[in-house]
Each structure stands twice: as C-alpha cells, then as structure tokens.
C-alpha cells in the first residue's frame, strides 16, 4: 500500500495542481484573470444571490386565464359554425373549462356534433406527430346537451407554449434593465424561476407584474356606463381615476401585436412624459383607415383592461406612428415603453415565492463566511497538529489541498456558492480530517501491538479504508438526497458537502499516504511519531 509507481505519483500531483490552477482565479482581480493565457482556467466562484445580492422570484402562469381565453375563442367558433349550418341552440356559454350548449331540436344532435368536431385541429406534440390527437373533445351530455372541452394533449401544449412565450417576454423585459446573467427558466409544469443579481425586487416586480396587453378600442357612443351595455361592448375604468368608466366595443381596432417599437419621450407642446409608438405595415394601414373614417370620434388606448387615455381623432393618422399621452411620470413612461417593446405576456403571472437580498447583506455574509472559514480552518489545523505531530502536518497539508480542490471544482463547474454552501465547506473541513484520524488512530493501535513502523502504517491504511468508505458513503447519500430535493441556498450546501466528501476521501487517503510513503523512504524511521 505504501508503494507508489511513478505514474501514480504524477497523477496525484497533477490532480492537486489542477485544483490549485482552477482555484487560482479567485485571488486575482478581474483584470488579472482576463490577462491569463487562454489555456489557464479563468472562472471564479459563482456566488449565489444570498452572497451577491439580488432577487429570486418563483412565478406561476395563470393557466386558468389561458384556458378560459381559449374556450371563449372556441365558443365563438361554435356559434358561427352552428349558425352557418342552421342548427338552433340555446345557452351557449363557457362554464369553467367547458363550453356548453343545448340544442333546440334533439334530431339535429348528430349534425351538431359533426359540425363542432369539424372545428377541431390536430395537436402537434413532440410525441405524436400524426393527426390522431385533436384539440377539442366533444361530448353529448344528454338528448340535447353538448359539452366541449380541451383534450389533455391540447391543454398540455397550450400550457407549454404559454410558459415558453412568457419566458421569452420576461427575458426581453429583464434585459432592458441592463443586468448581467439573469436566470429565467421553467420549473415544473407551469412555473418560471427568475433570478436576477443586483436588482431590487421592487424594480423587478414592476416590470414582470404587468401583462402589458395593449389594445385600441372604439368608444361605444350608443350608451353610457350606467345604461344597458350591448353584448358586443364592455365597461372599463380609467387607469388613474377608477370611478371614471368608459363603454368600449369589445373587438379591438388594433392590438399591441402590431407594434414594432415604443419609446419614452416628452411632448413638444407641454413637456409631458409620453410614449411614442410605431405600427408595422399592416397595423399602420388598419389604423390609417380607421382614423380616416372616424374623424371627430374618440377612441380608447387600453392597457391590461384599464384605459390609459381616450383621445379624439382630429384627422386621419397615416404613417403608422402615434403617441400615448396619459398622465405619465418619466419612470412610468419609461416602464410602459419597455413593456410595449417586449410584448404582452400570454397570461398574468402570480408570485409564489420571493427571496431578495440587498447588496449590503450579501457583502456582510461574504465577510462573515470568510472569517468563519478562516477561524474554523485555523482551529482545526492547530488541533490536528497538536494531536498528531508530524503526521498531523501531513494531514494539514492534505487539508489545504482539499480546500483548494473544493474551490477549484466549484469554480470549474460554476456551481453556485451560497452562504449555507460556505457552511458546508467549513463542515467538510471539520469532517475531512476524520479519515486521517481513523487512519492515524489505527496506526497507533497497530504500533502498540508491536508491529514495525512500515507494517503498522501499512495495516493502518488498509484497515481504515473500509471504514472510511462506509462512513463517507452514508454522508454522501444524505447530501445527494438533499441536492435533489433542496432549492437555492440549501442546494448550495448539498453541492459543497458532496464535492467536499469526494475530495476529502482523495486527499485524506491518497495524498497523505503518498506523503507518508515519501517520508518513510527518506527517513527509514525506527518508530512512528504519532
């Protein structure tokens, strides 16, 4: 066990050296690490939000909104299809996640079902490319009643695309904040994890909390908000003064989808903050035609079901650009222009979880982590040196290599280091020496039995190996389970603990053995100094 072939010695030296190289960038300044030759690793430790400061939000897409919008559209399709086929019906409505209706004449049931089924589209999923799966399921619930609902495949595909679309929109909005390395990723079926370093949560929530659905509506002059509202119109409040209500035509003239640009600026007349926008070609044409035929009438600019402004059309607006002059503050105009540029979210997002750490707390935590680590390591090192003398020195050198390896592996993998993660490292330092303690104690015992130094050391390492493996595998199992079930900072703890277990078995068992073997060859000791 004490014999090391040259290649083994080289390998051990190389691994230790690699650890040092990968850990090295962490003590360099940014400038220095950029000037490193390209073959040298330059990644520093990737600090978690709890150390760097920043915001973590777990969002959930409001699936119900997506489904209900989808069902409203299906209801409209069914209405026109049944009318076209001259099939009489009553009570056509969206009920939860179903569209329900009753036929006037039960004998038309077959025709009605065929007509509605004719509306269905194949669902393209990655698993089933054929036409076998349709998007809607039509069920006859009694002699005259029909219920239409989404198929499971369509539902899943809707949710998936809503999440993907939301992520894309969020990315565009967050990029506008000019931050580096935001994390925006799906989590589970309908959730999105957003982590942005260095940004206050309020600023983040301001730009992701709005759906930003912009629509332009005709003002319905046939009635007023207190009167009877026609079925193709609805009542919306003013964004500032909620008591002021407008009656608007439901079908929008144009939507934000036709926007190609939006910028915050100032009005030339009164220096008020405004948002100017530009339509695409199709939108410009539509808007031009509409304003030409409605000169003198008001129209409403609506954001998320609130009226921002309802200007009067003074003349036909051609050329496709315009401006919104609500009662904006400069920040408000800026925020709105960001939202309009990025586009609308398919559905509102709920904030399920929020964790944010200010920059000062992050810096304090890094400082506290550093001090605790240094104090912990020094205490352990002194204690081990005191307990085992020369062999303690070997163990301490191994401990330092171990520490460098942990930092090197963390930097290399760009695994996130959190404050509990630092605790994991410190704990590893405490527990890493366990392997050496096991070995040294065993050597002491064997020496007491009267074995020669070499035999005692040999047996010590041999006998301790199984114990070391058994003991470390059990801790490793716990760490891996923690990794899979934990989130955020706790996950960081599991990462450093697992890496630490692996590196400490290597350094405590292999590296110290190499040192002991070199020492024996050089000194040929008569007794063991432990």
């Amino acid at each position, binding site marked *: 066990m004490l014999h090391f072939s040259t290649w083994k010695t080289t390998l051990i030296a190389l691994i230790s050296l690699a650890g040092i190289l990968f850990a090295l960038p962490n003590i360099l300044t940014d400038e220095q690490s950029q000037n490193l030759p390209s073959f040298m690793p330059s990644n520093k430790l990737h600090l978690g939000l*709890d150390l760097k400061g920043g915001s973590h939000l777990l969002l*959930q897409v409001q699936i119900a909104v997506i489904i209900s919008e989808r069902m409203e559209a299906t209801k409209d399709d069914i209405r026109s299809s049944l009318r076209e086929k001259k099939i009489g019906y009553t009570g056509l409505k969206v009920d939860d996640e179903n569209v329900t209706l009753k036929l006037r004449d039960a004998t038309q049931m077959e025709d009605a079902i065929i007509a509605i089924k004719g509306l269905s589209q194949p669902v393209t999923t990655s698993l089933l490319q054929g036409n076998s799966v349709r998007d809607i399921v039509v069920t006859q619930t009694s002699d005259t009643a029909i219920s239409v609902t989404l198929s499971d495949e369509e539902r899943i595909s809707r949710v998936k695309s809503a999440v993907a679309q939301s992520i894309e929109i969020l990315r565009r909005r967050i990029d506008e904040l000019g931050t580096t390395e935001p994390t925006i990723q799906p989590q589970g079926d309908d959730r999105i994890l957003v982590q942005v370093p260095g940004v206050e949560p309020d600023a983040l929530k301001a730009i992701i909390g709005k759906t930003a659905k912009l629509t332009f509506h005709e003002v319905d002059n046939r009635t007023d908000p207190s009167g009877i509202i026609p079925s193709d119109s609805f009542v919306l409040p003013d964004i500032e003064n909620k008591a002021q209500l407008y009656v608007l035509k439901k079908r929008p003239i144009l939507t934000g989808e036709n926007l190609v640009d939006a910028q915050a600026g100032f009005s030339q007349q009164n220096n008020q903050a405004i948002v100017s926008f530009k339509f695409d070609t199709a939108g410009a044409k539509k808007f031009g035609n509409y304003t030409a035929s409605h000169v003198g009438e008001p129209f409403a600019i609506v954001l998320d079901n609130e009226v921002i402004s309802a200007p009067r059309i003074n003349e036909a607006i051609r050329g496709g650009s315009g401006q919104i002059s609500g009662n904006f503050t400069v920040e408000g105009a800026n925020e709105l222009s960001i939202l309009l540029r990025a586009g609308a979210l398919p559905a509102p997002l709920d*904030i*399920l979880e*929020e*964790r*944010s*750490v*200010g920059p*000062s*707390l992050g810096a*304090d*935590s890094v400082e*506290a*982590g550093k001090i*605790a680590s240094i*104090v*912990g390591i020094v*205490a352990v090192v002194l*204690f*081990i040196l*005191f*307990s085992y003398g*020369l*062999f303690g*020195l070997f163990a301490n050198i191994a401990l330092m290599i171990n520490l460098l390896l942990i930092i090197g592996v963390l930097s290399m993998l760009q695994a996130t280091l959190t*404050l*509990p993660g*630092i*605790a994991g490292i*410190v*704990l590893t*330092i*405490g*527990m890493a020496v*366990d392997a050496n*303690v096991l070995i040294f*104690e065993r050597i*002491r*015992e064997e020496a*007491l039995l009267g074995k020669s130094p070499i035999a005692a050391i040999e047996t010590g390492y041999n006998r301790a190996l199984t*114990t070391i493996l*058994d*003991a*470390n595998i*059990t*801790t490793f199992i*716990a*760490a891996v389970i*923690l990794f899979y*079930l*934990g*989130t955020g*900072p*706790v996950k960081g*703890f*599991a990462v450093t*603990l697992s890496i630490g277990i692996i590196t400490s078995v290597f350094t405590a068992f292999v590296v110290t053995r190499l040192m002991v073997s070199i020492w024996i060859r050089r000194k040929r000791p008569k007794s063991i*100094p*432990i």
Partner: protein
Amino acid sequence: MKGFKFVPAGTKIPFIGFRYISLALSIFMLVGSAGLFFTKGLNYGIDFLGGTTIEIQTLDGPADLTQLRATVGALGLGDVQLQTFGSPNEVLIKIQAQTGGDGNAQSSIDAVKAALEISNGDQIEYRAVEVVGPTVSGELVQDSIIAVFLAIGAVLIYIWMRFEWQFSIAAVVALVHDVAITIGFFSLLQLDFNISIIAALLTIVGYSLNDTVVVFDRVREYLRKYKKMDMKELLDLSINSTLSRTILTSVTTLLALLALVLFGGEVIKGLSLAMIWGVIIGTYSSIFVASPILLALGVKRDWSKNKTSNEATNP
C-alpha cells in the same frame, strides 16, 4: 514531533454497563422531545408556514422595537413578530401568511414599506425580503418530510447491504433517535425551524451514521477475531478502541461548527447550532444507543460459515 494523546490508549470504560442509565436518559429525552413537539410545537419559519420576513437595518442608531412593532402592528396583517437580528440596529419582521392566495403576501410588503416610510423616512435599509406563498410552503413541507425519510431509508438499505440486518436496525434506531431529539431541541429553544434546518437534519443523519459505522466496523472485525468473547465485552472493547477517534473527530467538527456559530452571521446560526447539537447527540447515540440495541438484537457469531454473503466487507 510526536502528537499529544487526548485519550490514553487501552481505555477500559464499561460503556455497555451504563446501558440502563443511557436507556433511561434516551427515553427521557425522547419523551421530552415528543412532549415539547406536541405542546410547545416548533417555531416554524415562513418556508413551512408561508408568510413574509423583512430584514431591515436602521441607519439612525439602534432600532426602536416598540415603535416599529406599533407601526407594523397597526397594519392589520395578523400575527407580526419583531426581533433584533445580530446587531441592535438590525430587525427581523416576520409576518404570518396572508389569507386569500399568493398575491396578498405581496401587498403586505408594500403596506409595511409604506408605513415605515411614513414613520421612519429614509432611515431604513431593506436588507432582505422573503415571501413564501401557501403553494410553495406546502410543497416545501412535503419535500422535506420525503427527504428525511428517503435519507433514513437509503442508509438503512446501505447498512443492511454492508452489515447484517441487526446492525442496520440498530443504526437506524440511533438515527431516528438523533433526529427526534434534535427536533425536540428546536422546540425547547424555539429556534426558527426552516428549510436549512432540514439540511442540518440530513447532515446529522450522515454524521451520526458515520460515527455508528466506525464503531460497527470495529465490532464486525472483533466478531471475526475474538470468536469466543462475550458480546458485552466485545462491544465495550470496540467502543474503547475507537474512542480516541470518536473524540478527536467530534472535537474537530465542533471546532469548525463553533467558528460558524460565532462568526458566520445570523443567517446560518440556526443551521450551525442544529449541527452542533447533532454532533453531540450523534456521538452519544452511536455509543449508548446503537451498540446496546445491537446487543439486544443479538448478532450471529459464526461468520466463517457465512462467508459467501459477507465477503465484500472483507478489506
């Protein structure tokens, strides 16, 4: 350069002889923990209950807790707790979960910020805000329970594969003993019980097992070596032979953890305290719980006739 022996070689402490005393002590601690758990309960953090914590720092000298409590208490947000956090000008505000869905927690933060703005102006810095909605907290509870049971189950299987089943049962009883008493410890001191404490519990599972495995490894070795030795004597010999290691490892781990408690800041104090307690109770249990249980269960002595199933354990 020779080392200093903290534990002299060849100690002959009759650990197993203390088993009735330790049994009484363990039962007392377990019953106490259960009693505390069911009466006093745990001081669950927002990870498990849902709710909001806001950590603030007053920039104009030490925080006036009475004034802050009055300001935040007047908002009608339900149960609100305030405590200093680390230093006298840092305060942790804990607000209970708001009824009516995930969105309402958000408005509670806005309310607190607005109220503090009026009362304290710009003399407050927001150091950290955490909001956990009811959906997530429910899942965290579930995940944590699964994690602890999964970890215990996994090591049960591992020990069973590596040793005889008696060892496995004894190790797991010691483990459950440690976890239960650590929960009791948290109930007694009413320390914040949050998701990082689950991390600590799992680490305790690992550590406690580590300790037990070291003793059991020696028991297995001596079972082969001293075929005629009385089981009690053999267990005592195994514990005494590994005693020096047990003490040294506990001391180094405790030194590292102590540094974390003293210098690591408030955020990981709970985690570190839990692990300190876990190291102490884990060391106790591998000597005074796991080994006596092994004695009570009885192990098959004749290992030579059972070579095929245990060959893998032979170094």
